[in-house]
């Protein structure tokens, strides 16, 4: 009897069922049409800053503002022989302080044709996402600017034709990839890039040389100045990565980024980046402006500390992020918590605080601080 009880206790304590050891072979069958995506709902409770020039200008009487953003993202791939049709479509409904707005965007819609083992061509609307930086990408010359406060968000690409040559080697040079891109613009196509008829030709050469990712970029446009770029990324140690980007417009601006990622023994990931843009705004230029474009100052220093599974809560993380404008020393500080439930629901809750002198970038924001809840259900 005692043995039987002991056996029962053992069985109960492990919680392992026969199903855990079985393998459903149907789950690995392939389909010619595959899709995935998410439904996301965001809510911001914002406290307003009465000292903000924008607050006075908009004649605000409330001290708070409510914002909700809802997005449905649908991503698909249709496979047909050596062809693939790849798409990412987004439908959004935003409500800012009672004013609603619908937005439908095709983030990506392009065909991929694998010509051979080494050659392939993509035609259509595509997001390239060049660069090794996490918060900023000065060398992403053919991408729309990304939001450094949400660097992992999907965003819209440009219409282009992209030929790729990819080849592996043995030795110090392990991989070479060459991208050649043609991108036209008119007042209707790719107008965010250049709002008139123009042609862009770009080249990116990627090398994995001595265990270092490096990219050399050249961009020619028949209506604007040529640009060049360089990026790198390398693990100096298994838990210590460094990266950087440099971009220059010939006879024009230059911009660069230096960054690192360090994982401590206690599993805290530190991501730090310094960003500089020669055409960015100085403290003297920021000070008199009522409002400036986000992150348009000359230099920033951003640090993020994140810890996975704090207090032994699996599938969770906590983070602290400081975004410092080095020109006027104003900050945006964020402390947050993320958790992914077993039913594919992920939440991200954060508290965000703008600080700085009244005339500084973050000090003059109309919102002084806000609580932000993001809930994303993946399908």
């Amino acid at each position, binding site marked *: 009897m005692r043995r039987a009880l002991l056996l029962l206790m053992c069985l109960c304590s492990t919680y392992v069922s026969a199903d855990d050891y079985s393998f459903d*072979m149907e789950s690995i069958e392939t389909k010619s049409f595959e899709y995935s995506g998410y439904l996301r709902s965001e809510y911001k409770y914002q406290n307003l800053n009465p000292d903000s020039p924008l607050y006075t200008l908009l004649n605000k009487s409330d001290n708070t503002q409510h914002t909700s953003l809802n997005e449905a993202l649908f991503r698909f791939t249709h496979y047909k022989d050596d062809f693939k049709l790849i798409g990412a479509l987004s439908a959004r409904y935003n409500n800012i302080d009672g004013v609603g707005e619908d937005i439908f965007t095709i983030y990506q819609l392009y065909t991929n044709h694998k010509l051979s083992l080494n050659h392939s061509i993509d035609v259509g609307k595509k997001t390239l996402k060049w660069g090794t930086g996490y918060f900023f990408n000065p060398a992403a010359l053919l991408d729309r600017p990304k939001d450094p406060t949400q660097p992992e968000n999907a965003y819209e690409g440009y219409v282009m034709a992209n030929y790729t040559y990819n080849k592996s080697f043995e030795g110090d040079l392990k991989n070479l990839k060459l991208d050649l891109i043609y991108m036209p613009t008119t007042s209707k196509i790719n107008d965010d890039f250049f709002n008139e008829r123009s042609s862009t030709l770009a080249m990116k050469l990627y090398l994995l040389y001595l265990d270092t990712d490096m990219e050399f970029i050249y961009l020619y446009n028949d209506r604007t100045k040529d640009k060049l770029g360089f990026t790198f990324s390398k693990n100096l140690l298994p838990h210590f990565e460094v990266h950087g980007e440099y971009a220059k417009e010939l006879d024009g601006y230059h911009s660069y980024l230096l960054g690192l990622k360090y994982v401590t023994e206690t599993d805290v990931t530190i991501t730090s980046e310094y960003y500089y843009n020669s055409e960015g705004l100085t403290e003297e230029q920021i000070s008199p402006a009522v409002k400036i474009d986000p992150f348009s100052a000359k230099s920033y220093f951003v640090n993020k500390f994140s810890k996975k599974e704090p207090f032994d809560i699996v599938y969770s993380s906590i983070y602290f992020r400081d975004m410092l404008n080095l020109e006027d020393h104003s900050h945006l500080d964020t402390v947050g918590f993320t958790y992914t439930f077993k039913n594919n629901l992920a939440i991200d809750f954060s508290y965000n605080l703008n600080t700085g002198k009244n005339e500084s970038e973050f000090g003059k924001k109309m919102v002084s601080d806000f609580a932000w809840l993001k809930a994303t259900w993946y399908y």
Partner: protein
Amino acid sequence: MKILLALVTSASLLSANTLLEKVDRNLQPVSSESYKKLVNIEPDGSKKEFLLYQVKKDKDKMVSLFLEPESEKGRATLRLGDNMWLYIPNVGKPIRIASMQSVVGGVFNNSDIMRLDFSAEYTVTSQKESSSEYSLTLKAKNDTVAYDKLIMTVDKKSITPKKVVCYSSTNMLIKTLRYKDVKKFATGIVRPAVVETVSPFYKGYKSIMVYGKITPKNFANEVFTLDNISKVGTLRR
């Protein structure tokens, strides 16, 4: 006499390293594709399952793709020697990661999921033998390997691991892997289908890795490049 002893010791360790290579070959062919399921079991009995597709070539190339759950679907990792990258569909580009970083949470880390051959990462420093088992002590070849020392118990009959105990460089026990349910996957691949993992850092937690399919298959080196990390799903077709 000392020279003779040294010669005998080095000869026996040489054969022990050959034995380790044999263990590797029995676990996985030089070039193959496989499907495996990971189950994280929490102390309260709740579970989370992950389904992975993996392609491996030689001693230093591996790419993995998450097929389930939906919250991880499309995530891919690429390992090329000591280089490791993670691709997240939303982020849209590969980022370099550390081998000890956890991709899925729970007891498994990247290195357990993206394991290359034991003989690529470890050297046998001592060997013991009983009537049914070998016991090998393995030392990491360099500090890029997640666990500094392994004690591996090998079944003499199938020449596959029965148990692997993982230690840090400070001799701290990190986790214990138990191999179970030996079965035939393909010609020449007879190996345990289940790997159970427990760790003193995750008291009450348990992780199970179940192999569903292992197929010997040759892949081009270009499969293991950043250009391909977002297209791993194409290899399944």
